């Protein structure tokens, strides 16, 4: 039996993925409501494919809010998502408490794996505490790097690119149960010391931020010099040193919380150790700048034509296929549109209570367009790209579309009269 302690996004996806490989899984969370929801086959968040995977593997999955049940597990993952504060710094108190509460219920030989997002040094600290408190305990402690991508979490959990495992001594063999679990997935297993594994997680995100930042910087330049980034990006993808999966689509900065957390971790470690990480500050500043692209576009291109426009917004989460609004550019935009009439639609996400008064949430995309002067597409949901521009044009009073992600592609140029703004290309028509 494999146990998962902590059932937020990471824990639920990971436990269901483990069950899908044929393992019997016990998934624990102290929150009875969460456990109840999962027992009924429902999910507390939106994640494509997860409900179906859960349904298919229910007989191997047991959800519980009784911590003593984890005694039957030979392998336990601590799998709660690490929360962050308003400054995007990790708060590991919850994970520490969770480990301390679980240990008395864990069998003597049980293998413990920290799957949660932790800072370098955390896992070694857990091992040392355990050894000093219970010197006779045989449990081995590992950390395993999670690379969950919200909206694509099921595919990545069931078909991981690789496993990154941190151990006290990477030359020592993995515990038998853990080895069998890892080998059930057809991917390489990279073993390394704790600190290396913990840094690997942060390094992956730093490289992603680097790509995002470089893309956004060049896309902005592209728009200024009358180039079109959508023409540039394919050439980069064919370069082996950059690659087909590189983050080459311009966006509104980094969001979601995980990348930001790891940037804070780098900054904090660099300060503590006296290394130069000013590049991180530049990334953060650049991200804020790109997040503000929409508000600048509204002020510089909409307000001179209509001083008090009705603004329609499509999309609320920071990316499609999720209802997560953590660090969402839409929320950031709403807080800068005080005094404007704003109508918003999203297929799944709901405005958090603190933002509810800042926009009217409509029941359909077209409803937001009624008498709107400008349409802003903040989340590139696929359904938005399929919208009937003719009906949008009929519903709107104004003729301006701000489409940072370019989901309408060349549609507008083919017979619609919108002034059109997207990232990485000059405004259309060019005369603006």
């Amino acid at each position, binding site marked *: 039996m494999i146990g998962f302690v902590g059932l937020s996004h990471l824990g639920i996806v990971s436990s269901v993925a483990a069950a899908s490989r044929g393992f019997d899984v016990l998934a624990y969370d102290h929150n009875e409501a969460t456990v109840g929801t999962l027992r009924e086959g429902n999910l507390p968040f939106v994640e494509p494919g997860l409900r179906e995977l859960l349904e298919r593997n229910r007989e191997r999955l047991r959800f519980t809010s009784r911590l003593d049940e984890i005694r039957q597990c030979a392998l336990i993952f601590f799998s709660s998502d690490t929360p962050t504060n308003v400054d995007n710094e990790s708060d590991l108190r919850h994970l520490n408490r969770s480990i301390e509460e679980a240990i008395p219920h864990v069998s003597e030989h049980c293998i413990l794996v920290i799957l949660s997002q932790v800072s370098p040094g955390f896992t070694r600290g857990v091992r040392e505490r355990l050894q000093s408190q219970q010197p006779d305990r045989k449990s081995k402690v590992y950390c395993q790097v999670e690379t969950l991508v919200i909206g694509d979490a099921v595919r990545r959990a069931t078909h991981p690119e690789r496993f990154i495992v941190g151990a006290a001594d990477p030359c020592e063999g993995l515990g038998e149960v853990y080895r069998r679990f890892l080998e059930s997935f057809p991917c390489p297993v990279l073993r390394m010391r704790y600190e290396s594994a913990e840094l690997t997680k942060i390094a992956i995100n730093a490289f992603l931020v680097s790509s995002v930042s470089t893309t956004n910087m060049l896309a902005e330049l592209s728009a200024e010099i009358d180039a079109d980034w959508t023409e540039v990006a394919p050439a980069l993808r064919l370069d082996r040193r950059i690659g087909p999966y590189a983050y080459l689509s311009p966006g509104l900065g980094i969001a979601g919380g995980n990348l930001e957390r790891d940037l804070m971790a780098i900054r904090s470690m660099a300060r503590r150790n006296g290394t130069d990480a000013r590049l991180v500050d530049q990334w953060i500043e650049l991200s804020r700048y790109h997040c*503000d692209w929409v508000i*600048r576009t509204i*002020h510089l291109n909409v307000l*001179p034509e209509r001083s008090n426009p009705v603004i329609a917004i499509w999309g609320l989460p920071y990316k499609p296929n999720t209802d997560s609004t953590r660090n969402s550019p839409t929320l950031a935009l709403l807080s800068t549109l005080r005094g404007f009439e704003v109508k918003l639609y999203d297929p799944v996400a709901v405005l958090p209570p603190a933002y509810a008064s800042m926009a009217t949430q409509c029941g359909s995309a077209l409803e937001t367009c009624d008498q709107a002067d400008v349409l802003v597409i903040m989340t590139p949901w696929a359904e938005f790209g399929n919208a009937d521009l003719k009906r949008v044009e009929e519903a709107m009073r104004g003729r301006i579309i701000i489409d940072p992600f370019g989901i309408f592609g060349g549609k507008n140029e083919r017979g619609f009269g919108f002034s059109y703004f997207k990232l990485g290309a000059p405004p259309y028509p060019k005369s603006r």
Partner: protein
Amino acid sequence: MIRHHHTTREQPDRVVLLGAKGFIGRSLAEYFATAGTKMLAISSAEIDLLLDSAAGKLQRLFQPSDVLIFCSALTPDKGKDIRTFMKNLTMGEHVCAALSKSACSQVIYVSSDAVYGDDEALIRETTPCQPSSFHGLMHLARERMLQVTADAVRVPLMCVRPTAVYGVQDTHNSYGPNRFVRAACRGDQIGLFGAGEEQRDHLCIDDLVGLIGFCAMSRSSGTINAATGRSISFDELAKIVVSKAQRGAVAHSVRNGPITHRHFDVSALFKAFPEFRVTPLETGISNMLEKLMVSSGNPAIRAT
């Protein structure tokens, strides 16, 4: 980071304006007069901020509910040397001395984008200040002097850093819209340094005083750059002026200095003051031409 100490707009009880006869000061005085705000407009004729007696006079004038707007300075056309720099600091010192003894409800300091280095490509409020002139250094020093004083007496301080400001009442005839529009009105050539490649952001005086008005009514504190977010080359600017005035011509010359550009990220301005509206440069130039035409009584000049 801008903080608004009033959640809703409130007319200040009274505005005390230092530097009321300068370009920006005159326009501010008109703005607050039009808004019906009680105002005490002070120029160097009333209180010479260079004199030691200035601090005591100001101290006796300040009321706890006053909004103090400090836009008095010896501008670079009056001197770019150490002596002028020291005089400007002395003026700041006297204002701070008065404030420390008789605090008001808010201080708005009209600073300058000269606090930033000349070679900064894109400027935002977090851009490190590296003034290359005594003028810029003076503004930065005054900002710090006022901040220390304001913190000590717990008064919100708003530092507004305008970029090049244009308007009919400009007294400096600075290179840019002010000089170009006047030259065009006279039918003279607009002389550009080199081919006029340098890009600059030009702010209409009406926008600046409107922004300062918002700061006063919201009792804001922090630092904000006052710019439009759109920069154009002096060559493009000169051509707009000639086109709008339908007279004058553009003349290029041999360049002596290096080419520098200045662009602003005005996101913070738009976010802190959603109601702030930028006057498009073409509109601002046309308005300036119209006003000059009226004031000169020359019907031959007509802005298109």
